[in-house]
């Protein structure tokens, strides 16, 4: 491809320079005497002050998001006042449970593998001899999330094949005293509920042996 030399971003040699005449700022008496401008500025700030003070005292303060384009006080008195979070807000993680109270997690390590912050640590365990799930799936002996390292990207939720980890608690990380307190273990994560107050999920779990179980399991082949 050849470069068209006539269309350069810099001025070609010998081309005529064009100028744009910009008007000088007015230096008339009103500007130069300074005091009228001071009076105008004071009127501006004072009106804003009185208006905001009044709306603050009388509780007519505007909602900062709804009134984002108009003037007025835009501070929320957190934590007494809170802004509602959207349904898709990613809060602290929780581990969902099955109907029998055990975690849905099968310790496949998908979440800890995809985690960009490497904040999930899982130790997988085998079910005891004779358990119908033994050899079919595993369970997490340890499931630890370092909530300080977590970047709340939500990849773990997307990676999970069992809908076992969710970020729908609507909670923030709490300001604890020490770093150890931010390392959440399995029991704590299983204790959190979703915003609907349930520790289950809406997606049903089809255990091997259930009528609804769709595919192969150890006892029967379709």
């Amino acid at each position, binding site marked *: 491809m050849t470069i068209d030399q006539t269309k350069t971003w810099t001025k070609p040699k010998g081309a005529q320079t064009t100028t744009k005449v910009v008007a000088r700022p007015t230096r008339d008496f009103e500007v130069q005497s300074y005091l009228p401008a001071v009076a105008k500025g*004071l009127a501006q*700030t004072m009106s804003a*002050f009185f208006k905001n003070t009044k709306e603050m005292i009388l509780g007519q303060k505007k909602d900062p998001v*709804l009134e984002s384009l108009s003037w007025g006080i835009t501070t929320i008195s957190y934590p007494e*006042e809170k802004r*509602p979070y959207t349904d898709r807000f990613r809060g602290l993680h929780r581990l969902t449970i099955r109907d029998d109270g055990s975690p849905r997690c099968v310790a496949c390590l998908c979440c800890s593998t995809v985690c960009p912050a490497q904040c999930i640590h899982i130790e997988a365990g085998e079910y005891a001899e004779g358990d119908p799930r033994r050899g079919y799936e595993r369970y997490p002996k340890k499931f630890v999330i370092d909530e300080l390292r977590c970047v709340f990207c939500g990849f773990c939720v997307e990676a999970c094949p069992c809908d076992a980890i969710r970020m729908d608690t609507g909670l923030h990380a709490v300001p604890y005293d020490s770093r150890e307190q931010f390392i959440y273990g399995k029991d704590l994560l299983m204790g959190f509920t979703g915003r609907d107050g349930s520790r289950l999920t809406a997606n049903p779990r089809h255990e091997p042996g259930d009528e609804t179980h769709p595919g192969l399991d150890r006892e029967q082949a379709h």
Partner: protein
Amino acid sequence: MNQTGTSFGWVEVVLAIVKILIIIGFCLNFSAIAVWADRRQSAMIQHRVGPNRAVVNLPSFIVQGILVAPGILLGALAALGLGQAHTPQAAIDRMGVSLQLIVLVGWFNLVVLSWRIHRKGALNAFEQAVGSNLPRAYFYAGLAAHVVVGLLTMGLSRRVADGQMSADGAYLAARIASVVLGGLLGASGVYAALRIPKGTVGIRLAGTLHGIADALKMMFKEDFIPKNADRLLHALGPMIAMFPALVVMAVTPFGDQLCFQDVNHNGAFEFSELLRVKGAMARDAVCEGHSVPLQIVDLNVGILYIFAISSTGVIGAAIAGWASDNKFSLLGGLRAASQMVSYEVAMGLSLMGLFLIYSSLRFNPMVQWQNDYAWGIFIQPLAFFMFLAASMAETKRVPFDQPEGESEIVAGYFVEYSGFKFGMFMAGEYVEVLTSSALIVTLFFGGYTLPFLFADGIDVTIGSTQLFAYKMNHLAVTVIQILTFFGKTLLMSWVVIFFRWTLPRFRYDQLMKFGWTKLLPLAILNLAVTAVGVVAIDAAGPGLHATLKLLGQLSHLLVAIGILLMPIGIVWLFLRPVESTRFLKSSSARFANAAGGVKPTPMQA
């Protein structure tokens, strides 16, 4: 002058200490509040809330006590104090005062209650009835009631003067009105207490507790001293910066004088006589008992003392800049010193015209002159603006705060200060704001006087026609004077603080150029014109004098009307409906709208 001559008394010593405590208490407390108000105002201008989070949690019975006690105390005071009168005329006067106070307390309570009901909902049928009207309806009804009550009182007063109304009737009316007022005050306190919910109640006082929180924080923070700093000078700097700011107030009068009766006729001032304040004073009368000037010391050099002391304040900044072993501090200290030297000249010269007119350097005669003729701002408006600019430069306030210009030299001379030493610089700056405001008020805004308020009461006389007259006793006039002085000072310092959030900082060369090439020649010109004017007016005949006196009275009238309209304007502003337009531009705004916007929620997690 004290009639007792040279006898030394402990009473004078105690009174002097009390006066010093009043001034120092005023300066320190209000400097702390001014620091808070400064931050709060800046936030309000920028549509933020500012410091309002400091809270004291009190059990509800203490809060209820705080609400009930003043109501009952004031009510008892009103019922006992306003009911007694010696003449039927005085009884009608007191009835009028009681009725006006009843109307005031009534509409104020209804406005507050209606507003609370509109925000939080009604608790019972009575509140539902109150809440059916908007707060501003109660305010306008109250204004109308004030006028009606005023007309009624005037009518009754005329009937008593004509003898159409019996003296017993007048006494009874005064007593009934005072008892109703007392009952209303007590009942409103009790009702407010009943509305307090059980449990602990967080008291914020609109955020003013932040001043206390800040002071406590400063006390407990580390007192950092740089390694190579001069430790002695580093410690001395903030003290030298704060001391002159405090002692400047020593000569500004916060009232005329308090005259006590000489009960035992021996000329010595005794403690038992402290309760015997003179009943009534004639205008321009010399106190024949013991006179207590409401001023810590009445120096004959007056304002020269202020010039001398206030300019030593810069030594603190300069020493701090030098002792901190920091180039930025040194630059800040140097800037402070050179700025102070430059503006001291213009500051002194801008006031020379006033001295020619007042023909005194002492403050009391200046204030009396303004009360007799016109406020300083009306006779020397140019001097007012020049003095305002110069005193803002002296106190290192915006737009003249180059010594602490953050954008260039971090924080100037107090870069290396922390903890309470920094707090002293901070408090010193705001004490300077208060003292310079007190000075401006005394020189240009009539000091402790109000228009038409004289030692014997209110007397509105324009030319030779008397429009209104009302006799007041000595103590009432003195209390009004003291409140006036402190109120005016606070208002002025509020205005000075307001400049900070409006005006951008000058460049340093602009500052110097403004001081030397604009302010100084203008001050000299002002002085020359004033000198010629004073000589010309002195040489002119009595006709011009009468005209000028009339003009002065008209200026007083203007100010008086302004003072009367101001509270109405403020209440009107606060009760105006809010005009609100909703924008639902973004998806988050639409979501928040569907979810109810900002909502108070219990703390989670």
